[in-house]
């Protein structure tokens, strides 16, 4: 359903994802997490392999690609973590 339920969401970018895009936050129009991933990959083709291996967080919890986004959501790309 392109064009339907598209929200402008603010997306936080960390670590390798921030370096790959040169930004620590971007605004993307997307209805779901999956759409968001696709749009980010379209905007930064070089970061696509990293995006494909990243998880996504909505309101500071991991979210599936099917998760529907609302404008006030806090969304973040979580590249493979390496804490500890």
């Amino acid at each position, binding site marked *: 359903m392109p064009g339907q339920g598209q929200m402008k969401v603010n997306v936080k970018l960390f670590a390798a994802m921030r370096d790959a895009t040169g930004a620590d936050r971007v605004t993307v129009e997307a209805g779901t997490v999956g759409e968001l991933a696709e749009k980010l990959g379209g905007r930064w083709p070089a970061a696509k392999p990293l995006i494909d291996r990243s998880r996504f967080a909505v309101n*500071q919890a991991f979210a599936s690609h099917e998760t529907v986004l609302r404008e006030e959501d806090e969304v*973040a790309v*979580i590249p493979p*973590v390496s*804490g*500890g």
Partner: protein
Amino acid sequence: MNDRIEVSSEPLPEHVDVSATTAGGVAVFLGCTRGETHPDGRQLVALDYEAYEEMALKQMHDLAAAARSKWPIERLAILHRVGRVGLGDPSVLIAVSTPHRSEAFEACRWLIDTLKKDVAIWKKEVWDDGGTSWVDPGEPGS
């Protein structure tokens, strides 16, 4: 129940007290920066840690709650540092006290393993030529 859970740019404390009169075992794990030689001969000088702090703290609180549901934990601490951590210095500290030692070892092991898998923290290697590289656990050798 007074868990101590922190993400901070300050050096980790030398000692974290999780003792309790009902705890016969205390397990403490420290994860430290280990010196490495890159395949091209460069030497590692430090690790730079970054966190999505709000999420990482929430996840660490969730880990503490999950550990409490699995083991009879008296007190626990999960501390993670951000910023530059030099060779030999600790970046993460986990301390758990339980009635008996086996539970303390198990809980401590589970907490560090799960933290490394899920918590929104990243580290970047800093090499002696000034070069840096994000650690990617999906890549061999990392």
